[in-house]
């Protein structure tokens, strides 16, 4: 029993890392822009579709361009639509971005079709890694590594670069940032693009793992919201801890009490929010209260 629990725990942590990556973009969009982006899952799906198309047209080397394309689309969406939601009721952003999610899913269905698309990992990443009781596909391990690198790069970008400092300052006191002569609208466009790019990276990585289909956004958006709520709205560190915990809880529930598999992460969220209403690492933000 111990062996299978160990194996499930390891598998859950890897799954958790993918959840973290999906949730990171959502957390940034909310934390820095104050927008609840329900279309985040749709950008995740777009990432998988662009990744697949680039692979089919130009091979694996072209796949990393998929998040860039999705980021550009996200920036256009920000200028046309999202910008109008800043400072408005959170409910409004929820409704508008929900409509946006439906629109993007319909566009995916229109351009790529309603059926799923076969998308396998590259040959050099296929195969299994077996260490004692632990069984992992090589591709899942690669996803783990890619996610850690992406999150580390994101943390360094936000913590140590001038642009990162402007983003963090803008999220706390946008008026002061503008008074310093920094063009905040352009910065915010960049932030939304960054959130979409993170969703797309997760989509590209998840494509060969899950099923590439128009409805794949639904598989991503609910865990992402749960993780952001557990971790604390806008907290990247919180999202990281919460993602790993959700992965772990989901995997162990499937092993020990499969009947509750569908409800496990929601129950976990409920318990955490009962104890800490702001989430694990959530802080008090004057802007939102």
């Amino acid at each position, binding site marked *: 029993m111990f062996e299978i629990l160990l194996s499930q725990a390891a*598998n859950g942590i890897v799954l958790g890392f993918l959840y973290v990556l999906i949730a990171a973009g959502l957390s940034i969009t909310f934390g820095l822009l104050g927008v609840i982006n329900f279309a985040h899952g749709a950008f995740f799906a777009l990432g998988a579709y662009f990744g697949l198309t680039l692979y089919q047209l130009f091979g694996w080397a072209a796949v990393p361009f998929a998040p860039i394309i999705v980021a550009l689309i996200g920036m256009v969406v920000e200028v046309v639509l999202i910008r109008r939601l800043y400072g408005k009721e959170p409910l409004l952003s929820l409704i508008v971005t929900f409509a946006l999610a439906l629109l993007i899913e319909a566009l995916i*269905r229109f351009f790529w079709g309603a059926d799923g698309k*076969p998308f396998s990992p590259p040959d050099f990443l296929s195969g*299994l890694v077996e260490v004692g009781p632990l069984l992992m*596909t090589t591709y899942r391990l690669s996803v783990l590594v890619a996610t850690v690198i992406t999150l580390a790069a994101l943390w360094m970008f936000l913590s140590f670069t001038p642009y990162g400092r402007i983003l963090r300052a803008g999220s706390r006191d946008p008026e002061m940032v503008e008074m310093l002569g920094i063009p905040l609208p352009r910065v915010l466009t960049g932030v939304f693009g960054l959130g979409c790019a993170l969703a797309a990276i997760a989509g590209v990585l998840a494509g060969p793992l*899950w*099923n590439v*289909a128009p*409805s794949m956004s639904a598989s991503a958006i609910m865990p992402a919201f749960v993780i952001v709520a557990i971790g604390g709205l806008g907290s990247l560190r919180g999202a990281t801890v919460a993602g790993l915990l959700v992965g772990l809880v989901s995997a162990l529930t499937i092993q020990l009490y499969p*009947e509750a598999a569908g409800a496990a992460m929601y129950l976990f969220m409920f318990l955490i929010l009962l104890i800490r209403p702001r989430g694990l690492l959530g802080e008090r933000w004057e802007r939102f209260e």
Partner: protein
Amino acid sequence: MFEANKRKTAGMTLSRIFSHSVVGAMLLAAGMGAQAQDTGPIKVGMIFPKQGPSAAIGEFLSRGALLAVEERGGKVGGRDIEVVFLDEPNAQQAQQNFQKLVEEHNVVGVVGGNSSAAALAMTGVAMRTQTPLIVAGAAAREITGASCNPYTFRFQATVPVQLAGLMPILRKNGQDVYFITAAYAFGQDILNTGRALLKEADGKEVGVDEVPLNTADYSSYVLKIRSKKPDSVIGGLVGQDQSSFLKTWNAMGMKGRIPFYGIAVSDTDFWDVGPDASTGIYTKPWYYNDPDNTEGDRAFVKAFMDKYDRPPSDKAYAGWLSMRSLLDSIEAAASTDSKDIVKALESWKDDKGAFPAFYRDWDHQLIRPSVVVEVKDKIADKWDYFDVLQHTSQGLEDTLADFGTKEEVGCNMAALS
């Protein structure tokens, strides 16, 4: 006091006049609707998934059904056919859309229902509104079993029929079986039926997982199955869940190690994941490349390929045959009256198939054998994934026996009213 009573009486009179007017207007509208159905185009409803994980299946179901309309030149009984196509996103909305088809569009019959949960929700409205419903995709036994009614007919063979076709093949592998099924009506039917059949065969259940619909990541389930080392796995997953499971099953090195069996799968479940991940033995209602297909079947395959540049899945066939049976019956009834259409459906026979399929009069289940297929070792064609192993039955007697007796099925059909 008197004045108050007078006002009350006047009020009652006014409210009575108002309510009579409303009833009158409703009757007038209904009459106008009926008149429109007597002279204008004949409206037929269609409810299949347009969005969500079953959208691809819904697309094939609707394409098949629309092809049946086209084959007749878009006419039935000399009048134009107008198809009103609404969505089946979930059971509740499917039920509401059925109601909408009847009350707002005055359809004379409906072809629809991919998920068993949605189909079961719709059968109640079919009965209440006395509207013929041909359930094209759902397999849960209740639809033509305990929940049967005079206005509901069903294309797909029931879960017990399809599972019984697999059991003799499955038992050759050994007695230890693991179930992984969807956590809703269809999956629960597979689990209960599978358990009963396993008990009869002295088999052993080594594990069960009832999986929430739209599960994206199956890796934890595969690890669990792997640790139990069963002789075979019986799956009851549908659409994207079936595809996601197969993808993970293959990625985790399980393909070819433990045989996988399933029922009521669709070709799209396999086309979606590609040849590398596809594996298993399945019962399906029909396969486009079955050597036993008749000229009629082949003509349908050709018409579908000409129009959509790909072969029809079994779901397209289900949509096609279901719609054909409804339109043929409207034609035979020479009427849009629902009772006449129901009677015509009870006498309808498919003259194009290898087996003269028909709806059994006491449960309205379509009686025809299913096909048992195995994923090819080497898939060379983009669409042709299966070898046909056998059919679940041959003659009429065998087929009727497969579909069960009145006692086994549990349908107590109400009188047509």
